[in-house]
């Protein structure tokens, strides 16, 4: 009955209703429209497509490959993200160094499609800069599990970093101090205090990365080769190659099963652990002393090594943008930049507008939904959490086509507008914000909010005055990811661009088709520059808003 009582709170009730309406419109309705196309033929249900796919040994192989790749990327990426997060939040890094770390983790997130894979092939191909010219390895095969895993881990570990850093940063050093004063060694404190407190975050991060890898299609499209088929590329091939929408959709729906299982596992596992490190009673924060000086050197060294690899790829990309034709004519030129600022200007304008509108909406949606599912009790709470993950877990190709089918015909016609692209980005890329909010809230003692309500504040006021300042980092993480993805994603939105609205990523793909590597690289460099500028602006803004007395809001994105 407690569930129903919660609904008498008008602020809560209206938020729940609005969120369900949005989820219904932009997640469930397109999915239903797609399912209708798949299983409904001439007025009756057909499962022929389903059976054909599920009995094909190649497709079964692709299922296993996807699971393997997702698990590897989830674990390795989380480990790498944790390494960076510990280094950034637990070693008292001087601010300039922290900025270097933040920048290095931002770069891979800002990787526009295809160009990074090309840099990878240029470096590690059979005649690659590294494999052939530097190491002298002959006939090295770049295509397969190894390079796909490497590339995806490097691309997605920043998501782990974004999820873990606020958790580690928000952890009160006093908690560790208590263990120290009881005589624990640093390693023991790390193992028995710091690490367990991070478990919800780690679980969230593995889930996010697993799902991201499961849904990623650009990387395996270029790097997986022929011996390692995975589901998203199989689905894409089925639709765009064999013109079999039904089969492609079935393959994509298969992807939902493992994503859902991991999600349930994580819920079950994490929900048994309950950690609160931020309470109303915290005293002054003491200095962090959990990492020994030698360990700090090792951690920073390891991070710099990874950062060097990342920076190398982007240096190569930048080089490609200022020479006539990479690999053929290395004369300097600014022509490519001239091209993107004339012919490409419309794409730049459209992309900025779409990303700029989607960013605050996505951030807001992320913390609202995260807050509701983590803190409030109302009927259908768990379902809401699951539904909010669907568009993230599905490959972009399918989300794009589902939107196209759903919003092309009445009652709701949105194709050809910018709104449909914005909606696609928000509902596909906000789960980072949602997961971060949930993870952060599980660290914060609900008694803080109970106290506020006990003093007569409504849900709305409590959220605004108490919870919001505490979860602000999650807001900015969510907003940052939506912005970055709006600048770089392509798999879903390739189906939603129109005569009226186009995107930079579509231009990059087009340039790659025309063998115009120079403009493609120049666009990529521009995207990186814009994202960095925007993130820097957000960080500056965040410093302004840092409320006195609240937990020091350590900005995720370079504050």
């Amino acid at each position: 009955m407690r569930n129903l009582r919660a609904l008498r709170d008008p602020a809560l009730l209206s938020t729940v209703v609005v969120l369900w309406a949005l989820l219904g419109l932009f997640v469930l309705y397109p999915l239903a429209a797609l399912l209708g196309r798949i299983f409904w033929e001439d007025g009756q249900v057909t499962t022929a497509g389903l059976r054909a796919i599920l009995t094909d040994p190649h497709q079964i192989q692709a299922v296993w490959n996807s699971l393997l790749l997702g698990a590897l990327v989830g674990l390795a990426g989380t480990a790498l993200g944790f390494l960076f997060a510990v280094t950034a939040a637990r070693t008292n890094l001087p601010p300039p160094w922290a900025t270097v770390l933040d920048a290095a983790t931002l770069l891979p997130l800002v990787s526009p499609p295809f160009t990074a894979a090309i840099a990878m092939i240029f470096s590690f191909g059979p005649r690659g800069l590294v494999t052939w010219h530097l190491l002298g390895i002959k006939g090295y095969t770049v295509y397969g599990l190894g390079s796909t895993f490497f590339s995806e881990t490097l691309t997605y570990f920043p998501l782990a970093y974004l999820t873990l850093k606020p958790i580690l940063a928000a952890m009160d050093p006093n908690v560790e101090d208590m263990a120290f004063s009881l005589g624990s060694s640093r390693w023991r404190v790390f193992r028995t205090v710091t690490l367990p407190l991070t478990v919800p975050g780690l679980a969230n991060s593995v889930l996010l990365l697993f799902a991201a890898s499961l849904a990623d299609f650009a990387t395996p499209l270029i790097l997986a080769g022929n011996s390692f088929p995975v589901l998203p590329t199989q689905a894409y091939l089925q639709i765009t190659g064999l013109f079999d929408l039904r089969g492609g959709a079935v393959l994509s729906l298969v992807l939902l099963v493992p994503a859902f299982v991991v999600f349930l596992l994580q819920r079950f596992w994490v929900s048994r652990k309950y950690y609160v490190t931020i309470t109303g009673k915290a005293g002054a924060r003491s200095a962090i002393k959990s990492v020994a000086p030698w360990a700090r050197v090792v951690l920073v060294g390891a991070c710099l090594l990874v950062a060097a690899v990342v920076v190398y790829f982007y240096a190569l990309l930048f080089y490609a943008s200022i020479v006539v034709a990479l690999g053929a004519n290395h004369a300097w030129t600014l022509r490519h930049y001239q091209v993107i600022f004339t012919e490409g200007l419309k794409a730049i304008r459209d992309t900025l507008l779409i990303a700029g509108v989607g960013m605050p909406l996505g951030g807001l949606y992320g913390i609202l939904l995260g807050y509701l599912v983590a803190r409030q009790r109302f009927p259908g709470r768990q379902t809401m959490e699951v539904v909010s993950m669907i568009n993230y877990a599905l490959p972009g190709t399918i989300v794009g086509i589902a939107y196209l089918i759903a919003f092309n015909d009445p009652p709701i016609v949105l194709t050809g507008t910018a709104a449909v692209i914005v909606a696609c980005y928000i509902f596909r890329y906000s789960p980072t914000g949602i997961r971060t909010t949930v993870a952060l809230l599980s660290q914060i003692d609900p008694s803080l909010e109970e106290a506020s309500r006990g003093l007569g504040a409504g849900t709305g006021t409590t959220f605004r005055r108490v919870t919001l300042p505490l979860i602000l980092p999650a807001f900015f993480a969510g907003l940052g990811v939506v912005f970055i993805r709006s600048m770089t994603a392509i798999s879903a939105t390739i189906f939603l661009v129109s005569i009226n609205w186009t995107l930079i990523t579509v231009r990059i793909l087009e340039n790659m088709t025309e063998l115009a590597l120079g403009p493609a690289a120049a666009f990529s460099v521009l995207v990186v520059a814009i994202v960095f500028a925007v993130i820097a602006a957000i960080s500056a803004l965040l410093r302004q808003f840092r409320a006195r007395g609240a937990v020091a809001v350590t900005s995720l994105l370079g504050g």
Partner: protein
Amino acid sequence: MAPTIRGLFGLAVAVMLVAGLAGPPHAGAAQTLNAYSIWPENWARPMFEEFERATGIKVNFVRFSSGEALARVIAEKNSPRVDVLFGGPVETFAAGIKEGIFEPYKPPTFAALPARFKHPDGQWVAIADDPLVFMSNNTFLKDNNLKPPSSWEDLLHPAYKNMLQMADARTSGTAVTGISSILEVHGRDETRAFEYMKKLRPNVQLYTKSGGGGTLPVGLGQAGAGIFFIVDALDTKAKGYDVSISFPKEGIGTAAEAIALLRGAKNPEPAKRLIDWATSPAMQSLFAKHKINFVPAHPEVPVEPSLAEVLKGTKIFPIDAEHAGANRKRIVERWVNEVLNPKP
């Protein structure tokens, strides 16, 4: 007096209103149409600009790869967003016919075109022809003391081990045309053709998703050679990459590029004018001017001299669309099972 003035004023307002209301259709006489182009923008844009210059009709377009364009048109078929599907290999159009997305239309040049350049009912009509070629990296050839491959057998040379890039038959018209070529040079004896492809498999480093996907790796020397459409190969060369283009003496296939009117098109008249124009010498004689290396489909348009020079003395045969179409699914499946992922 005053009422008259007021009356005149009212009349003037009324006239202006009517003119204003009637205005837009007149002003809108500068017609427009919408298209999905499968040709890359650097070829589609100059063609559409020439069309606008010739007819005053503006073409709004977006470019997609053939598979994406078809998937979109099918998804939008209840309410098409565009009027014309422009460019792209005939097999894409063949796949669209059974989805009922095209409106048959026979342009004035229909009768003049050879049978392989048109669908009998006018579901699609060809605008260009695109032969396959071998393209190889000159540095790779020099390092291995090889000449540009001049026979299908040359590609079996051990120096090519793991150094060929070709298109994936499941996704690429280039690959399907390639397999049809191999079938054709083996006298349509599938057993022998598949023997050849199985022998070729160890030399193939990667089957790319799109037909042009391997051009950059070959240009960069990450792959030694591959089979590509001539437009892609000549483009790679024009970009400055040091590559050779050659033809097998046994012959190689060619595939037509098409245009079609979509069923339910909202601007059918301008769309038909675009089809009329694109299937006639009016457009196809402009290929040379814009350095688009397609072979014109219309028999009266001469091949541009430098392209003709490349094609001189080569053996190029059309792929029998009927045979290829009827067997496509089965052959691609066999290719996947026996060549791509042979069962152990």
